[in-house]
């Protein structure tokens, strides 16, 4: 942070200026906290230096003068406990049902592993609270870039290399804006099972789960006659995998008969692979599907099983645990019956054709009548 390589100024002064501008432009309702790492301990003891992280502005509505004063007094020191800082920042934000965003700004790689900051990020993301870490590297070198990319990828966040004060300010402002926009209810956490029997029963809504490589996760949805089931799934690639991959979402009857499937595959760098399906019970005229007799005037719901599977292959050294994030949306809407359109036509061409046909028929009928009248008169 002391290196003077951004527009001839030290990285810390650029970061401080950027922060001041961001704090000035903050909307009043934004809840923000600031935590620093490697800012107070000046000794050489690694053990103690690696515990050096403090929350200098508690999470809440921002007190601008206090936040600026706290940031102005910062001086960089030697150690960079990124993993510990991330873990503490997640604690600062607390638990709840809304999305939390951490913006990590650093110029140096973590010097305190273990814990490896990337593993920490993945572990935090898997804890149920929806947590996204956006990372910003100040004039980053290769090691910093790799580490920040890994942290961002593990949590569905972004990575930016900032080479100037303007870039840094603009990006932080954008991230803060985004945090405010995406401060919505997070998906419900669900735990899919290995078979349809006993799988969690889902109402319409968005769910999140974790799925390991080559794992199958089952869910159940009750669908009434006249309803259409809509489901979609996204599996996130939060770790390095082989370049070709796919995801399969199937809807099956409880006896294992497949009803419909949604599939997508791809190759190359991506964030999520998604598939979706529609299925409506009204279309199915299969009496054997509901063996138990239902009392007249009552519609019993049929159970449809949803199974999510993936064909991701881990790269050498990629950890399998915890599983990859799965986002599942389930919706039940009124079914759309097949149209029973009449065997009729539409359009200007039809009108023209019918008129011409009528004209020709009239002409022929007239000519025939004239000929017939003429012959009749002669005889």
């Amino acid at each position, binding site marked *: 942070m002391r290196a003077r390589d951004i527009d001839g100024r030290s990285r810390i002064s650029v970061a401080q200026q950027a922060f001041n501008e961001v704090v000035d432009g903050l909307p009043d309702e934004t809840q923000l906290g600031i935590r620093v790492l490697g800012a107070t301990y000046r000794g050489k003891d690694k053990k103690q230096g690696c515990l050096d992280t403090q929350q200098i502005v508690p999470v809440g509505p921002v007190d601008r003068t206090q936040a600026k004063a706290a940031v102005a007094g910062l001086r960089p020191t030697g150690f960079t406990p990124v993993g510990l800082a991330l873990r503490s920042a997640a604690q600062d934000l607390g638990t709840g049902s809304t999305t939390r965003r951490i913006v990590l700004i650093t110029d140096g790689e973590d010097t305190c592993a273990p814990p490896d900051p990337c593993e920490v990020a993945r572990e935090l993301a898997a804890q149920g609270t929806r947590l996204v870490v956006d990372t910003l590297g100040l004039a980053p070198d290769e090691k910093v870039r790799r580490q920040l990319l890994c942290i961002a990828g593990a949590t569905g966040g972004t990575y930016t290399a900032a080479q100037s004060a303007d870039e840094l300010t603009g990006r932080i402002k954008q991230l803060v804006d985004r945090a405010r926009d995406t401060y919505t209810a997070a998906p419900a956490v669900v735990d899919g099972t290995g078979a349809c029997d006993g799988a969690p029963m889902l109402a319409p809504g968005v*769910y999140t789960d974790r799925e390991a490589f080559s794992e199958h996760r089952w869910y159940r949805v009750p669908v009434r006659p006249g309803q259409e089931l809509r489901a979609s799934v996204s599996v996130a690639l939060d770790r390095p995998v082989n370049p070709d991959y796919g995801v399969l979402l199937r809807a099956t009857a409880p006896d294992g008969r497949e009803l419909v499937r949604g599939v997508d595959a791809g190759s190359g760098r991506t964030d999520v692979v998604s598939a979706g399906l529609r299925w409506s019970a009204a279309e199915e005229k299969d009496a054997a599907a509901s063996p138990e007799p239902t009392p007249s005037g009552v519609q019993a719901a049929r159970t449809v099983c949803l199974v999510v599977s993936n064909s991701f292959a881990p790269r050498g050294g990629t950890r399998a645990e915890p599983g990859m994030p799965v986002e599942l949306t389930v919706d039940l809407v009124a079914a759309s019956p097949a149209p029973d359109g009449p065997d009729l036509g539409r359009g200007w061409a039809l009108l023209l054709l019918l008129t011409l046909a009528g004209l*020709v028929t009239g002409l022929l009928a007239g000519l025939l009548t004239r000929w017939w009248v003429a012959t009749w008169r002669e005889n």
Partner: protein
Amino acid sequence: MRTPIRVAAAMAAAGLTLTPAAALAAPSPSPGAATVTKAGTSFLTATTITAGQPVRVGASTGDHLYWSFRADAGQVHEIGVTVTFPKRRTGASTWTVDVFDGLRRRQACTAGAQTPTAATAATSVALGCTLRRVRPWAEPWSGDPLPGTYYVRLSVTDLPEPDLGLPIEVDLLVGAVDEGGASGDDGELAAALVPNTRAGTVLTAEPTPEPVAEEETDLTGWLPEAGSRWVWTTVGGVLAAVAGVAGFALTRRPRRR
């Protein structure tokens, strides 16, 4: 006598060439539309835009940017994206614009450079995607485009790793051409493909059976809607009858005065 027929033929030819040209014209922003300066980073956080609304947003190389727009039956949408690189890059990069429907099903592009590669020295790259015409109805098992939400995702699929994180400028515009022809005769989707984004609830018990709702019969339900095949064909029949009488009358000897 010949001139009107020739004019009619020329007009028919012009009509034939005009339709595809209109469909393939580059999208242009609608006048007075406010520029959107945001982009989402996932399906759930996609920024909502409308057709004709320009988008200009700064981002980092490697970001996956999401927008969503609403499509109605009969429309053909065309997406145009330009990515500008203000900084020097170390190698060529391949960009892609993916389009998904409300069920996150991948949508095919009928035209446009969906995955162009930007050379190392290039300062910008243009992407495009023309979607299929949105159908008013499709069987649940089919993947046809249906009315509802559509998602656009811009990402870089292949690049040298050191280029990740560099700033980019993204310009995006979604254009819509309404070709009409969406009639209830061809089926209608009871609910548009708009995703439910509320947090779900895990049910603890099977839902109780629901009493069957009595179907209400309404007199107006029997009347065919304007533009339906019933109306067209009936009008055609009437025209044919009139033309028949007219044709018959033409063959009669003119009356002596």
